[in-house]
C-alpha cells in the first residue's frame, strides 16, 4: 500500500520535471533591453530636492539568526513585498499590509551567520558539512522547544561568549544567503517607484553594549556579491569596520555608508572619548574617518529614542520620550556618567568641543529613524505595530507586553526593560529629487534627512545670513532657500559682521495623521568659557498660543486622547506651522549647531490600541498617549579662525 503511494508521488514528481524541461525550450527570443533614457523626476529646470521619501534603513528577516531562530520565517523577498505595499502573511500567520507603503527600504540582516535559520530549515549541505553546523541543525530538527532553545543558546554562546565564528572555515552558507539577499534587493528595486538597497548589519556588542552599524550599499549586486559582509566575529571595533569599507570601495569601485544606532544601550561607548580597542583619546584622524564613513545616526527606533535624555536636558519637557536608560544587553547597569556619551544632543555638543580641539568634529552626523524590526515587517504606526520580534506579534498573550528585552543578564532585577516599552518607531525621511538608490543614498550622504518616530510629517529648514520674515511668502520658497542658504545637514561659516544666522522653517502634518503642536529649534554651542550649552526655542506653536520673551511657550497643547476607544481628535493643533527665526544670542566666534524638532499633538500609544483591541490592561507605567515627532539633521555654524 505505502509503496504504491510512493510510486504515485514519484510519478507526480517526474511529471513536473518533464513539464519543466519542455517549457524551458520555449523561452528563447527575448528582445534586447531598451536603450531609452528614462528620467524619474519632473521639473528638469529645477535642481534642488523637492520631495520627501520615507523609508526604513534597518529591517530584519528570518535570515537574521536572532529573528529566524525565534520564530521569524519571513525572507528578504517577503519583507520587500510588504514594504512596497503588498499584503503578506506574518510569521504567526496573520495577514499584514502596511497602511501606506514605504518609498525605500534596506534589508539589514545580521552578518553573524547570515542565513543560519533558513539554512537549517532546508538542511543546507554546506551547513551540514561541519560538526557545529550539523549539531545546531539536528537540535532544531528535534522539533522540540528544548531543542530549539539549546540551538539558539549554542549560537548565542558562539556569538556573545566565544566571539569566534563557528562557521569560519565554512563560508559557503553565508555566501549563499548573502547572494540571495542581494538578489532579492535587485529584484524589487524599481527606480522611480520603490528603492530597495542592499545592506547588512554589523553587530558589534562588546560586553553586551550596543555598537551596531548598518552598512548601506549605493550600488548593486554586481559589486556587493564580490564580498561577504564583515561580521562582529571578524572585529567588534568600528575602526576596523571602516577599514573594511575602504577596502570594499577600492576593490569594487562601489560606495558604502554605515549608520550606528542605540547609543542609549551602549553604556557610554557609542560616543566615547576614547577609541574602543586602544583606548586612546580621539584624535583628528579618528574624527575624519568616523565622519567619512558614518554621516548618519539612527536616533529613534523600537529600542527607544536617543535624541535627548531628561537628566541631560532638565529644562526640556519633551526630552523624556520612549526612554530606555536602565541597562544594556550586558550585565552592567547604565550609570548617569555614561549618558552624555549615549545621546545625540550631548554628542553634538561634545562634538563642538572636539572640533575646537582637534580641528575636526567626530560627531557631526545627520539624524534618521528606522525600525530595527525583527519580524520582516516595518510597522511604525501605533495602530498597527507588530512588535520587535515574531514572538511578540499582535495577540492578547501577556508575552506581548511582558517579554524581557533588556536586562536578561543583569543581576539587578529592577533593570529589566519589557516589551511594552518597545517603541512603534521610526522612519528615515529623505529630501531628494528622485526615488532611486543613487539619489536617496546621496541625500543621506549629505545629511539632507530627518528622523521621525513613525509619522510622515514633513519639515524643511533653510539657514542663511540674509533671510527675512517675508521670505516665507515667496512662491519660490525652496529655490530661494537653496540659493541663499543651506538646508538641514548643511554648514554655515563666515558670519558677516553684525549678523546672526536666520532660519526659515516650514512643517506640515502627516496628511493621514495628527496635527502639529509646535516647531522648535534646539541650539547647542561652545561658550567662551569652554563649556557647552543648549537652549530650546519654540518657533511656532498651534492654536494661537503665545511664545514668551524667553522663547518658550509653556502652555501645553492639550490632549484629546480617549484611552478606552484609542482615539484622538485634530480639534487641537495646527495642520501647518511656519516660522522665520533669527538667533537672538548669536556670538560669531562660538561654534554652534541648530536642529529643528517638530512635535505632534498627543495620540494613543500602541499599547493603548492593544488594550482596546485585545481587551487587556494597559501595562503599569505605560503612557496612554505620546507626542510623535521629527528631528532634522542639524545645521552647524563654524567660525572662521
Amino acid at each position, binding site marked *: 500500500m505505502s509503496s504504491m*503511494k*510512493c*510510486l*504515485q*508521488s*514519484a510519478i*507526480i*514528481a*517526474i511529471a*513536473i*520535471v518533464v*513539464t*519543466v524541461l519542455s*517549457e*524551458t525550450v*520555449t*523561452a528563447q*527570443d*527575448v*528582445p534586447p533591453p*531598451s536603450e531609452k533614457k528614462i528620467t524619474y523626476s*519632473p521639473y528638469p529646470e529645477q535642481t534642488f530636492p523637492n520631495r520627501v521619501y*520615507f523609508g526604513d534603513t534597518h529591517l530584519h528577516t528570518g535570515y537574521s539568526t536572532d529573528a529566524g531562530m525565534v520564530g521569524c520565517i519571513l525572507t528578504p*523577498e517577503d519583507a520587500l*513585498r510588504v514594504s512596497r505595499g503588498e499584503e503578506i502573511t506574518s510569521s504567526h500567520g496573520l495577514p499584514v499590509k502596511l497602511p*501606506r507603503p514605504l*518609498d525605500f527600504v534596506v534589508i539589514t540582516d545580521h552578518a553573524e551567520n547570515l542565513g543560519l535559520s533558513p539554512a537549517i*530549515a*532546508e*538542511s543546507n*549541505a554546506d551547513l551540514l*558539512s*561541519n560538526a557545529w553546523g550539523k549539531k545546531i541543525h539536528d537540535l532544531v*530538527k*528535534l*522539533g522540540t522547544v528544548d531543542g530549539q532553545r539549546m540551538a539558539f543558546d549554542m549560537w548565542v554562546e558562539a556569538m556573545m561568549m566565544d566571539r569566534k565564528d563557528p562557521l569560519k*572555515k565554512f563560508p559557503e552558507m553565508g555566501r549563499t544567503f548573502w547572494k540571495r539577499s542581494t538578489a532579492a534587493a535587485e*529584484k*524589487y528595486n*524599481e527606480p522611480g*517607484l520603490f528603492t530597495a538597497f542592499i545592506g547588512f548589519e554589523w553587530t558589534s556588542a562588546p560586553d553586551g553594549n550596543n555598537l551596531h552599524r548598518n552598512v548601506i550599499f549605493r550600488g548593486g549586486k554586481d559589486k556587493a556579491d564580490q564580498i561577504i559582509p564583515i561580521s562582529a566575529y571578524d572585529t567588534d571595533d568600528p575602526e576596523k569596520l571602516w577599514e573594511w569599507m575602504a577596502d570594499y570601495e577600492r576593490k569594487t569601485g562601489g560606495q558604502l555608508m554605515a549608520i550606528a544606532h542605540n547609543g542609549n544601550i551602549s553604556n557610554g561607548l557609542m560616543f566615547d572619548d576614547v577609541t574602543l580597542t586602544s583606548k586612546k583619546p580621539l584624535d583628528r584622524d579618528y574624527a575624519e574617518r568616523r565622519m567619512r564613513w558614518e554621516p548618519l545616526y539612527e536616533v529613534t527606533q523600537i529600542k527607544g529614542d536617543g535624541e535627548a535624555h531628561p537628566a541631560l536636558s532638565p529644562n526640556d519637557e519633551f526630552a523624556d520620550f520612549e526612554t530606555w536608560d536602565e541597562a544594556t544587553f550586558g550585565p552592567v547597569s547604565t550609570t548617569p556618567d555614561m549618558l552624555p556619551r549615549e545621546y545625540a544632543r550631548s554628542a553634538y555638543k561634545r562634538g563642538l568641543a572636539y572640533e575646537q580641539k582637534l580641528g575636526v568634529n567626530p560627531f557631526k552626523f545627520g539624524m534618521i529613524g528606522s525600525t530595527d524590526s525583527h519580524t520582516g515587517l516595518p510597522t511604525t504606526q501605533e495602530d498597527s505595530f507588530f512588535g520587535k520580534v515574531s514572538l511578540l506579534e499582535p495577540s492578547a498573550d501577556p508575552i506581548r507586553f511582558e517579554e524581557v528585552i533588556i536586562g536578561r543578564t543583569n543581576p539587578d532585577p529592577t533593570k529589566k526593560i519589557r516589551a511594552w516599552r518597545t517603541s512603534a518607531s521610526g522612519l528615515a525621511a529623505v529630501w531628494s529629487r528622485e526615488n532611486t538608490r543613487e539619489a536617496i543614498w546621496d541625500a543621506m550622504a549629505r545629511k539632507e534627512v530627518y528622523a521621525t518616530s513613525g509619522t*510622515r510629517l*514633513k519639515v524643511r529648514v533653510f539657514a542663511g545670513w540674509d533671510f527675512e520674515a517675508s521670505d*516665507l*511668502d515667496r*512662491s519660490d520658497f525652496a529655490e530661494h532657500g537653496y540659493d541663499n542658504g543651506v538646508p538641514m545637514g548643511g554648514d554655515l561659516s563666515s558670519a558677516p559682521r553684525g549678523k546672526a544666522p536666520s532660519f526659515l522653517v*516650514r*512643517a*506640515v*502634518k*502627516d*496628511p*493621514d*495623521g495628527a496635527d502639529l503642536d509646535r516647531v522648535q529649534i534646539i541650539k547647542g554651542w561652545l561658550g567662551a568659557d569652554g563649556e557647552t550649552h543648549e537652549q530650546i526655542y519654540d518657533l511656532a506653536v*498651534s*492654536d494661537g498660543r503665545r511664545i514668551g520673551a524667553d522663547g518658550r511657550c509653556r502652555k501645553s497643547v492639550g490632549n484629546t486622547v480617549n484611552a478606552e476607544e484609542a482615539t484622538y481628535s485634530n480639534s487641537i493643533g*495646527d*495642520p*501647518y506651522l*511656519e516660522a522665520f527665526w533669527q538667533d537672538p544670542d548669536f556670538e560669531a566666534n562660538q561654534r554652534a549647531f541648530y536642529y529643528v524638532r517638530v512635535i505632534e499633538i498627543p495620540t494613543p500609544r500602541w499599547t493603548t490600541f492593544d488594550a482596546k483591541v485585545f481587551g487587556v490592561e494597559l501595562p503599569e507605567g505605560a503612557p496612554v498617549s505620546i507626542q510623535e515627532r521629527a528631528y532634522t539633521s542639524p545645521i552647524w555654524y563654524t567660525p572662521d579662525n
Partner: protein
Amino acid sequence: MKRLLKEPLLHFLLLGAGLFAASSFLSTRDELPRDAIVVSAGKIEHLSALYERTWQRPPTAQELEGLINDFIREEAAYREGMAFGLDRDDTIIRRRIRQKLDFIAEDIAGLVEPSDDELAAYLETHPDDFRVDPRLTFRQVYLNPDQHGESIEADARDLLSTLGGDAAIDASSLGDRIMLEHDYRDVSMREVASLFGEQFAIAIVELDPGSWEGPIESGYGLHLVMIDERTDARLPELDEVRDQVRREWEHVRRLEMTEAFYREMLDRYEIVVEWPEPDTKERDS
C-alpha cells in the same frame, strides 16, 4: 537546480521509478538477492568527497574503509528500522520528509522559465498590478480649517465662484499657506497620495480638466483644484515591465505549485478530522 539534484528523496523517487521501468524490460538486477546492500563506486566517491569537505583532505584507505562499513551499517539499520515501522510515529522524520517534499515543490516552481506568451497573459489578467499611474498637471488653492473654522465650506465656495470658469486666472496668491506647491506638473497619482493623502488623490483623478473644482478634502483641510492636464492610467507593454511581470509571475507560480502539489496529493485521500468532544465542564466554570 543544484539543491534539487542533491536531494536524496528525489534520487529515491527517480530511482524508484527508474527501477520500476527497468525491471519490466531488462530485469538486470533480478539475480541479486532481495536484501543485498550494494555500495556503488559512485557512493564511495560521494562518501570520500563528504569526508574531504569536513577535513580538507581525502580519507586514507583505512578511513575510507571505515566510512564504507559505517554506511553499510546505516543502510541496514535504516531498512530494518523502516521495516519495523520506526518512522511512523516519529515527528522528526515525518517533518523532515514533509519539508523535503516542500523544497522539491518549491525548487521545481523556481526552475520554470516563463514564455513571452505566459508573461503577456499574466500582464493581461493582472492589469491592476502593473498599470502605469495616471499623471496629473494641476493647481490647487488651500483652505486651512484652523483659520476658517465653521465657515470653511462657505469660504471655499465663495472662492470657487470668484475663480469662476477662468482657467487662465492666476490663483497662486489665493488661499492659505501650507508646505505644498500651488502648481504640480506631471506628477503620478502615487506622488499625489504621498503629498496630499490617498483620499485626495482618488478624488482629483476623477475631476474634469479645465475648470476650478472643489472643495476637495485632504488631511490638511479643503482644496480647490484645477486639473490642467491628465494622462490617463494605461496598461504598459510587456517590454516596459518585463522584469516586474516576471517577478510577480514567479511569485504566484510558486504559491500555486505548492498548493497544487498538496491538492493533488490530498485528492488521493479521504480526510477525516475527529474533533474532540467540547469539554463542557471547563466551559461552564
